[in-house]
């Protein structure tokens, strides 16, 4: 079976720091793939290379087994794309735009398009320029889903959607996957996609760091936990717990960092009277640290710890 996306040493350099370097990414068909990285990491650069909007400095890529440079139109017929900074022809109404894009595509299931409009609660009679960011995004999503593409490429596509529509969007992605289609969705926020994606790729500073399942990622994820106790606690009771590090107990409050399961920590804490537990979710940056504790990452971790203590 051919992969939905495959890049080989894909490199794009602009100037000094931006761009991507030697990215080898394989996204299998029939999954929802999250492409994660902080802003400026190179997510959009990779996506725009896949779309042939920009050309690689070196390396190559194929989509649905077709070369992104040579087989452009064949790929375009079978894929759709929603950019993060979605710009649409602002003097058209939503319906006019969907008609135009449908005509460019050549084949659109009208009934399915109408059901999408309904599910995402889009008012197609309004002009694009009068729509809010979230509503514009809905037009883009209807346009992308209405052709039932074999591969959907969504670049930060859910920004600005309200929670209910976000949920409906997730259902649409899951339906697409269940039909054997592939969804490639980029984000800089793990929580936004973690329950949706089967696998994620992590990119930082233009390099693909890892491709992991969400479960695998979470096992490695760091979590900062604070527990307030009533009465005094013995720090020794928490010594040598699996996955627990940076342990500090002061003034009846325990602070630590946990990698993976918090089970052992909770069981140890249960021996004392607990007033409150606070858990700070891991940011992508912290996952990167857990993954690849480079010198730079360790510095950042220390800085974070310092500000934490000050607070």
């Amino acid at each position, binding site marked *: 079976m051919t992969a939905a996306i495959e890049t080989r040493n894909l490199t794009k350099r602009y100037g000094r720091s931006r761009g991507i370097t030697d990215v080898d990414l394989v996204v299998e068909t029939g999954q929802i793939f999250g492409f994660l990285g902080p802003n400026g990491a190179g997510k*959009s650069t990779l996506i*725009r290379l896949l*779309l*042939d*909007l*920009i*050309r690689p400095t070196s390396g190559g890529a194929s989509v649905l087994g077709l070369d992104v440079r040579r087989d*452009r*139109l*064949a790929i*375009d*017929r079978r*894929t*759709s*794309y929603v*950019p993060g*900074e*979605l*710009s*649409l*022809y*602002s003097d058209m109404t939503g319906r*006019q735009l969907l*008609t*135009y*894009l449908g*005509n*460019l*595509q*050549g084949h659109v299931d009208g009934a399915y398009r109408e059901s999408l409009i309904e599910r995402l609660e889009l008012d197609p009679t309004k002009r694009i320029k009068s729509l809010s960011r979230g509503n514009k995004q809905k037009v*883009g999503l209807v*346009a992308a889903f209405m052709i039932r593409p074999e591969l959907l490429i969504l670049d930060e596509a859910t920004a600005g959607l309200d929670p209910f529509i976000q949920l409906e969007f997730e259902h649409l992605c899951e339906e697409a996957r269940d039909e054997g289609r592939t969804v490639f969705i980029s984000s800089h926020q793990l929580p936004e996609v973690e329950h949706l994606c089967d696998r994620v790729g992590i990119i930082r500073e233009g390099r693909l760091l890892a491709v992991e399942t969400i479960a695998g990622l979470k096992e490695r994820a760091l979590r900062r936990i604070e527990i307030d106790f009533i009465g005094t606690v013995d720090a020794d009771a928490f010594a040598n717990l699996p996955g627990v590090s940076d342990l500090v107990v002061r003034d009846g409050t325990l602070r630590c960092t946990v990698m993976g399961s918090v089970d052992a920590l909770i069981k140890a804490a249960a021996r004392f009277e607990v007033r409150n537990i606070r858990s700070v979710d891991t940011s992508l940056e912290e996952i990167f640290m857990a993954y690849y504790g480079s010198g730079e990452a360790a510095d950042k971790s220390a800085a974070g710890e310092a500000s934490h203590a000050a607070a």
Partner: protein
Amino acid sequence: MLLRNVFTKTVRDLRWPTFWVSLGCGVMTAYFAILFPTYSKLFDLNAILEKMGPAVKLLGASLGDASTLIGFLHIELFSMILPAAMVAFAAGMASGFTAGEESRGTIDVLLSYPVSRARVVLEKWLAIVLACIVVVLVLWAFALTGAAISASALPPDRLASALVMLVLLGLAFADIALAISAFSGNRGAAIGVTVALMVAMYLIDALSSIVDGLATIRPLSLFRYYMGGDPLRNGLSLGDAAVLAAVAAVFLAIAVVAFERRDLAA
């Protein structure tokens, strides 16, 4: 209906500019055609031109015979106002074809559909061709109507010849603007360079008969081919028309290739 493809969509985008430019040029031409008998009764226009001497060349009026409507239109409109309007319209619109979509960011969405870059350029170009033809057809009808009202002689075929040259001049500059914007992605640069080029070429052509030295570079000016053969009096010069068409074709090809090869703006 206008949402079928890039060509029809561009026609839709151009519909109001085309309407207003057509109306403006048409009304202006009809105005001069209607008032021509009055003017020629009040003034001996040829004598006035004579008195102005070489300065009149700046207005490009060297070839005009103001005692006929067709000569009058040549002096008043075809030498400067109409070509300037046509070039501004055609080049102004064409400069935004790809650069406008790039700066607004719509090009990313457009090209994610099965439409090649070359096709985007060519279909948009076809729309500006149609728009220019509409402008001169309206102009032609208004001019003949004006001439009929004032009972002045205005040979429709001679007028048509001049309008063909007007379209070709407009398209040549439109394609220069299109090529610059396709190459650079910068609409402002495309408009600026094209207008500067137009002014320079106009001056070279207008002054070539009174300033020594300009005559040698006059063939570089597109205005030389536009009215050089005096199509209002002599009919269409196929050679001159071919030069303008060739310039238009070359710059269209450059636009297609430049746009095809470039990284598009994010």
